[in-house]
Each structure stands twice: as C-alpha cells, then as structure tokens.
C-alpha cells in the first residue's frame, strides 16, 4: 500500500495582505511522482516552496496550517530548517549551478553537512553524477567550471547536487521549462528513475509532461487545489469542470 510521505493540512498563505493559497490539503505519496499543474499565478510554485520552507526567505509571507513530513509538522518551532532542507531538496526552474567546478558543485552540500573525507566525497560525486545520468559526459572534466556546461547538463548537475545530500523528497519547480526537447526527455527519464528511491513533487506547465511522468496530479486554480487524484483519473475522467477545461486546453 502507498504510504504518505508529506501532507499539508489546511495550508493558507499570504503575501502581505494578499492571500495566495487557500486551505490546501494535499498528500504526497512515498516514492511516487506528484505533479502540480495549473495556469500561471495559480500558486503551485508558492505551494512547492512551502514544502521546504523556502518561503521563509520572503519576509512578507505569512503561513497558517500544517505541513507534515513523516508525521511531524515542519513549521513547528523546534524544527531545524537547515536539516529540513537537507531532507527535502529542490531543483529550480532555471539551472543554477554555482560558479565553481563540477566536482565542487556536487561536494558543496555534503561538505556543508560535515563530510570532509576526500575518498568519501569522491564516491559521492561519482554516485550522484551516475544517478543523474551525467557521469559519462563529464567524468574526464570534473574540474571544469559548471557554468560551461549546456543548459540540460547544468540541470542534471543541479539534480546531482541535490541528491548528493541524500534527501528523502525532491521538489522540482518546472525543471524542464528552460530546456530543449531532448534535454527535457533526459530529465523526464531521470525523474522516473529517481522515483524508485525518492519522493518527487514536480510543478509543471506542460500537461503532456504531467501525464507522462506522474503518478498523482493536483490541479491548482487561483490559489485553490481544485482536484487531486491519480494522474490517469485527472486526465481521463476529471471530476471538476475547471480541471477538464484546463487539461483539454480550453484555458490556461
């Protein structure tokens, strides 16, 4: 049976006075890919950033409700937010490798979290790059500046950097929207592969992508979660008119 890895309970969010999320109740199942779809500005990215508390960085944001990770509310006061973000990693819309070597990009996270042993770091680099399907392309030039890689390679490097700290959940915020179709396909294959070991939540604008890769889909509209179900159900027999309109391309 599928177990719940993360879950939000009546999650509300405000940017200043403006409410951006309304009573979101959404389960994230373990080792599954959950896709969040919806038109621009519907709150799906904002929601995603609640799951690793990245919204904490914006001073005007106010949050109400619970976000449970393995049954514990991550917004409890005694939660170590830095440890939380190690457990819940994130891949961004635009590839953002740091301006350092490929090797240093991967070891950055592990070093921050206290791994100093060179052999162990070497092992992590090889493992993470293999896992991100990048090893064969870069194994001879690990000291090259990461910014000299192509966009698709940079994004896979960011995925490798994320899994290098051994997270449990990986959040992806439109990870392929800045990439060409071939690179997109590679990332999608990679996500399917990663779902064997990790729980993945992905925000996407691309409905074909959601239907291709995800197990569950949540449809957001104007800050509300309109519908959440198995992906086949959402795409074949949506329960709500808005969902049907959106996935059939009538708006959005």
């Amino acid at each position: 049976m599928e177990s719940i890895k993360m879950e939000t309970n009546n999650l509300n969010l405000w940017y200043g006075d403006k409410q951006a999320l309304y009573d979101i109740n959404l389960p994230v199942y373990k080792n599954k890919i959950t896709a969040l779809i919806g038109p621009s500005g519907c709150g799906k990215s904002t929601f995603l950033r609640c799951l690793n508390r990245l919204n904490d960085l914006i001073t005007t944001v106010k949050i109400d409700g619970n976000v449970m990770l393995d049954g514990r509310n991550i917004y409890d006061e005694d939660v170590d937010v830095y440890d939380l973000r190690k457990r819940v990693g994130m891949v961004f819309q635009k590839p953002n490798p740091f301006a350092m070597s490929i090797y240093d990009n991967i070891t950055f996270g592990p070093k921050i979290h206290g791994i100093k042993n060179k052999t162990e770091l070497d092992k992590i680099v090889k493992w993470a790059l293999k896992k991100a399907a990048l090893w064969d392309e870069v194994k001879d030039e690990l000291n090259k500046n990461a910014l000299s890689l192509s966009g698709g390679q940079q994004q896979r490097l960011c995925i490798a950097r994320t899994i290098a700290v051994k997270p449990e959940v990986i959040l992806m915020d439109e990870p392929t929207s800045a990439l060409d179709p071939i690179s997109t396909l590679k990332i999608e294959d990679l996500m399917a592969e990663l779902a064997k070991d990790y729980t993945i939540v992905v925000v996407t604008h691309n409905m074909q992508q959601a239907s291709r890769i995800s197990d569950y889909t949540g449809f957001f509209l104007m800050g509300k979660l309109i519908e959440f179900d198995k992906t086949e159900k959402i795409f074949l027999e949506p329960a709500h008119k808005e969902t049907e309109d959106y996935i059939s391309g009538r708006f959005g």
Partner: protein
Amino acid sequence: MLATDKNVKYTTHKRVRMIKDNIFLFLVGSLTLITIIPLFHIIISIVVKGLPIIIKNGTTFVFGTLSEGGIGPAIAGTLMLTFLATLIGLPLAFLAGAYSYEYPNSFIGRTTKMLLQIMLEFPTILVGTFIMGILVIPMGSFSALAGAIALALILTPYVSVYTEEAMAEIPRIYKEGGYALGCTRAQVIFKVITKMAKKGILTGILIGMAKVSGETAPLLFTAGGLYEVYPTNPLQPVGAIPLLIYTLVQSPSIEDHQIAWGAALVMLIIFLALFIPIRYALKDEIKL
C-alpha cells in the same frame, strides 16, 4: 502620383536624419577627445620628465636613499602603507559590504550603506587630522601604523561598496540554491555569494589599493616621512611616494624637482600595475 510625392518627402526626411546623426556623433566624439586629452597629457609629461632622471640614476633611483639620488625608502613606505591599510581595512570593509547586502532593509543596513557612500566622497585631509588626533598625538610620534589606519579608512568604502554591489548582482536563484541544500545564512553569503561575486569584490579591493597608494592628504599629519633609511618598524615614521613628491616640489632645487618627476613616474607605474589587472579581471567575467 501621390505615392511618389510621399517617397520624395521620405528621402528628404531620411537625409536630414542622417545629417543630424552625423553631427551628433561628431560632437560626442570631439567632446570625448577633449576629456581624455588631459589624461594623456599627464601621462606623457610624467614619462617625458621622469624617465631621464630614472635612466641617469639607474637602479640607485629605485633602491637608493634620497641623498644618493633615489627614492627606495619612499617606494618601500608606499608598499608598506598600502599593505598595512589593506590588512586593516579589508576584513572590516568586506563584512560591512556583506552586511549591507544581506540586510538592505534593516535600519543598520540602510545606515551603513548611506555612510559608506558618504565615506567614498569624504575629504581625505579630514581623515588625516582625525587619525592625528586619536593616534599620533597620544603616541607622541608619526608612524606607519597611523598612516595605514588613515588609508584604511579611505580604502574601506571602496571595498564595501564594490562588495555590496557585486553581491547584489548575483541572481536570487543562486542564493535559493544554497538555502535549498540546507545552508545557513552565513554559509550562503560566505560560500555561495562571495565565491560568485569574487571578481567584483577583487575589483573593489584593487581600486581601493590603487586609490590609497596615491593618496597624500591623509599621510600629511600621520606618516611623517622617512627617506634616508628603509622603514622597518610600523610604529616608527614612514615615507611614501606621493608625500615625497609633495615635499620635493616645494624645494627650490632643480635636482629635487627632477627626482619628484621620477617619483611620479614610479607612482604611475605602481598605480597602473594595480589597475590593469582590474580591467583584465572584468574582461573574462563569466556571464550569469
């Protein structure tokens, strides 16, 4: 018929526009030339008047004492002062810059930024009198340390402002990338942002060093001057090239004037040696 008329009008209009454009380019070009002529005049006259004395005295000019016809102690003094000023000013300046970057909206952050902007334009002679009051008088002597602290105050805003601006230019996604890996605030600033902004920060450091290596006013009441022996103790008075030039041009002797021109050339070379790497560093900046 009508269409042809329109065409005629159009070509006339186009020609007028081209003439206007050329006049504009000519004006901009000649005004630019007028502004850079003084710069070339300075460089050329320093080389023309400074080079003969350096050739005449040879290595003595660079390593000898003033009575031997050289400015060795002054060069050593300038290097010592610039080095000490950087050593003292750099850590504080960097931290102040990082602070105003990280807390741009806090009261202290905003005040820091405003004060740094004021310090950039602050009359340097006042810095000299300030250090004289708090250091030279209590110590009872001019010293390299007092001079270096005065220079450090002048270097600080350059490094801080450049640090802050270089950091602010790093796109937000890199900062978020750091946080998403579990970095603390300090780790994001010092390990992610600083690394990515290092060229801009380095530029600020070099500009600050170039600036203080040529300063005279803050040294007038602090460094003292030392031209017959090499400086060894930072608590003793020290000489500097600009200070030496200032002293020599007031002398009636032609020989002194010649040495001053030679010293000016040496100072120009030191200044350019600090400045050219800046241009070089900016050139191969990786576009983010």
